[in-house]
């Protein structure tokens, strides 16, 4: 039963993450694009419960360190103006799932102060808000593209492995050809053929289709291997002897053997695709400023000055870790569960 508990835990974590991302507008205190040019690379704002005189407050409050720095009062906590954190406040307007408009945010402080739970970036934009909004494109695009890759992989790998012969040759050599294509230049050509400005939806479709279509060969090869060995198993031969059709054999006996490979491929591809988006953005095919994406948040870490001076830029990466771990755990548990059912 612990495996089942693991699965439930992972699924709850995933669901929590997904709803945070879906309701980003509500949970994020600010609009992802709003710049605070006086506060580039501000460290995370600390939440306080005890004030300078030692009184305890149930409502957390923050100190505006930047403001204190500007007026020359030093930057230690306890100086500068303090702002209590309010809940269900009115702020920047947003839309949930592109449909429901609202301007109520879960928390916030008075407009003259700023609350940056994960610090701010080079333009003084709230990292926490950007992290949540960034997931909307990155998570979904990564997930759908990975599913697309794996589905093409099942079809191609399944057919190639099961039927073998010239069909196998054709599909696998075709896959190799696909791998050998100079993708970089093809993507340049794709970019040149597209209009200069690509809308958000088009970006999303592009990300999904480019990543999904480029990445199918590896799962296809793995699945072909599994299918190849599965079809020679005795129970498959027996079923065939009883007159089972190819479609029935594939569905009932052969493809179920590939679930393990499928799930591991899926869990490996999703984080890979989140990062692949950075490359596509470099080629002008990805998410452009000021839209945030996880790939962009992570890629800023590749710069030495960020790495060495602003530790809070690591926070998005830190929060992604449990997410990807949850994916992996879920896949792992599902695979185990499936095995048990199959036996």
């Amino acid at each position: 039963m612990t495996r089942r508990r693991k699965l439930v835990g992972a699924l709850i974590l995933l669901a929590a993450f997904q709803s945070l991302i879906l309701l980003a507008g509500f949970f994020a205190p600010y609009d992802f694009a709003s710049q605070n040019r006086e506060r580039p690379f501000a460290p995370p704002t600390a939440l306080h419960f005890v004030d300078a005189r030692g009184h305890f407050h149930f409502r957390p409050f923050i100190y505006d360190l930047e403001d204190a720095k500007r007026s020359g009062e030093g930057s230690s906590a306890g100086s500068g103006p303090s702002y209590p954190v309010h809940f269900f406040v009115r702020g920047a307007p947003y839309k949930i799932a592109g449909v429901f408009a609202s301007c109520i945010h879960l928390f916030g402080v008075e407009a003259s102060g700023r609350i940056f739970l994960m610090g701010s970036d080079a333009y003084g934009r709230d990292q926490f808000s950007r992290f949540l909004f960034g997931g909307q494109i990155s998570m979904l695009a990564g997930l759908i593209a990975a599913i697309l890759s794996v589905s093409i992989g099942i079809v191609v790998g399944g057919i190639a492995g099961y039927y073998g012969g010239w069909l196998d040759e054709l599909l696998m050599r075709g896959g190799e050809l696909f791998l050998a294509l100079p993708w970089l230049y093809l993507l340049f050509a794709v970019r040149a053929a597209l209009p200069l400005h690509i809308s958000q939806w088009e970006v999303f479709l592009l990300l999904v289709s480019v990543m999904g279509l480029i990445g199918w060969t590896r799962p296809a090869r793995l699945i072909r291997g599994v299918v190849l060995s599965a079809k020679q198993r005795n129970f498959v031969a027996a079923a065939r002897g009883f007159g089972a059709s190819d479609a029935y054999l594939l569905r009932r006996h052969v493809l179920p053997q590939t679930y393990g490979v499928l799930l591991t491929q899926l869990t490996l591809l999703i984080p890979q695709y989140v990062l692949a988006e950075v490359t596509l953005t470099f080629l002008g095919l990805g998410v452009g400023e000021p839209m945030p994406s996880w790939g962009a948040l992570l890629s800023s870490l590749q710069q030495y000055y960020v790495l060495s001076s602003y530790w809070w830029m690591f926070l998005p990466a830190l929060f992604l870790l449990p997410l990807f771990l949850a994916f992996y755990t879920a896949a792992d548990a599902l695979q185990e569960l499936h095995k048990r059912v199959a036996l």
Partner: protein
Amino acid sequence: MGKLYSWAECAALAAVFALGVSPALAQTGQAGEERMTVEAGAIGHAGGRLVVALRSEPKTLNPVLAVDEPSRDVIRCLTADLIHINRGSLKTEPSLAKSWSVSADGKQYILQLRRGLRFSDGEPFNADDVIFSFQVYLDEKIDSPQRDLLVVGGKPITVVKVDAYTVRFELAQPYAAAERLFDGVAILPRHLLENTYRGGGFSQAWNLSVPPNQFAGLGPFRLKEYIPGQRVVLERNPYYWKADHAGNELPYLNEVILLFVPSEDAQVIRFQSGDTDVLSRFSAENFAVLQKQQSVKGYHLDDLGSGLEYNFLFFNLNDLGPKGLPDIAKKQAWFQDARFRRAVSAAIDRDGIVRLVYAGRATPLWDQVTPGNKLWIDENIPHPARSLERARQLLESAGFSWTSAGSLVDAHGTSVEFSILTSSSNAQRTKMATIIQDDLKQLGMTVQVVPLEFHAMVDRLQNSYDYEAAIMGLVSGDADPTSEMNVWLSSGETHLWHPNQDKPATPWESDMDQLMQQQLVTLDYAKRKHLYDRVQEIVAENLPVICLVSPDILVGAANRVGNFRPAILVPYALWNIEQLYVQ
């Protein structure tokens, strides 16, 4: 690409118009060698090695064909020119030519060469080498990137040998910055290259696989070893022709090692750890990182202030009739209105760019001449502070209005939306675009930032004209306006907003053409300055390019490197490498 850079890489510098140039003290060394004495700098001691990182592997060691900066950095150490621009003083100084005179009409230059000099392989140098070199540079089949500069008034410079140590250069028209043309034109050894050239194999000569004994130059160092993918090692040229003011032979260093370190961050880390001795071309953010450990790590950093790079936003003002880009052509009605461009300029937070993009290590700009270019800057150009109020008034006067939701619409009710192209490999320019995007949002404009891979972007700017606005930067190779001819002439290839025009499209471009042509043939500095001031005024008023900022030149060197005197001209740090020594 080469075209975009060719003007910027070469070129000559601010004007020194004394007709009788006083030659630096010539001193005769052994065997009648007319050595040059370098007056500036401390007396160093001989020996030691310097390690420097190059951003990438050089493409060639052939001075005639080199375009990329790493190749040129290596070649600069190996070769010498006839007249040189001293990076410290920004003035011309004698180099292989010990003196020169100019005819009264400004069309003839007679150069006296130093006698008794030898190439780094020991072979003597004389006028035949100069004649041969210019023959190669001017050969159309070789297509040297430097050739354009040696074509004056539509005709190539004629080079005539007067005697073994005198050469006459004839120009088709007077040319204000003629002396500066010689800077960077490396003299080739005829004895090594003539046969290859006559045999038609020059384009392959002196590539990276050249054996060191087949390579010779007149520079302070000579080629010792080339290890592909790793480093090039240079050794002291024993035949070098400069000496310090105590009479010691230069260069001081025994060896220079140029490592290939492919990224800026990797270069910064290697400099920080003491692997390399000199660092240039790095960002303000990395400057701040290095600064923290300055005192404990045994290096020092210099902020030289604004260099010659200017970054700007510009709109597509090309004639799109034949290109068939109706959507962009429609938007050009806005772009072509100077009031629209002024409104955009007024709304841009240049101080914000300086602070957020360059961590304060840059200077805001309102025209193309940077404060670093002290000889040519027009101090009277106004520097209006950012004002959204003024921007709104300008837009209103140009027939724009705002909807109830606050978005800007033109007289036909079309909402103002456009995209800004930037190069995705240049983080700074993408950042500038993101800031401008936010600035213009406050005027009700919807701006998209479109970062593209550099070559894809240049293709749109120069060939397809399929763009609306773009952010670019240019780095003059020289402070003299002559190096900017290609940018400001309406027929120029780097006249970015509307290149290669048959005849100027607007009255102010026509004025600019005249002023630029005039300054080119005017010999008097004050008069030239007046003409170029007028060009700057036209730019500031009509804003074909909306200038944004000029980044500071940042350099660093290990404390043990003596005579380190960085300059705002390329190469920022190693221009006086013959004088550098290690303590």
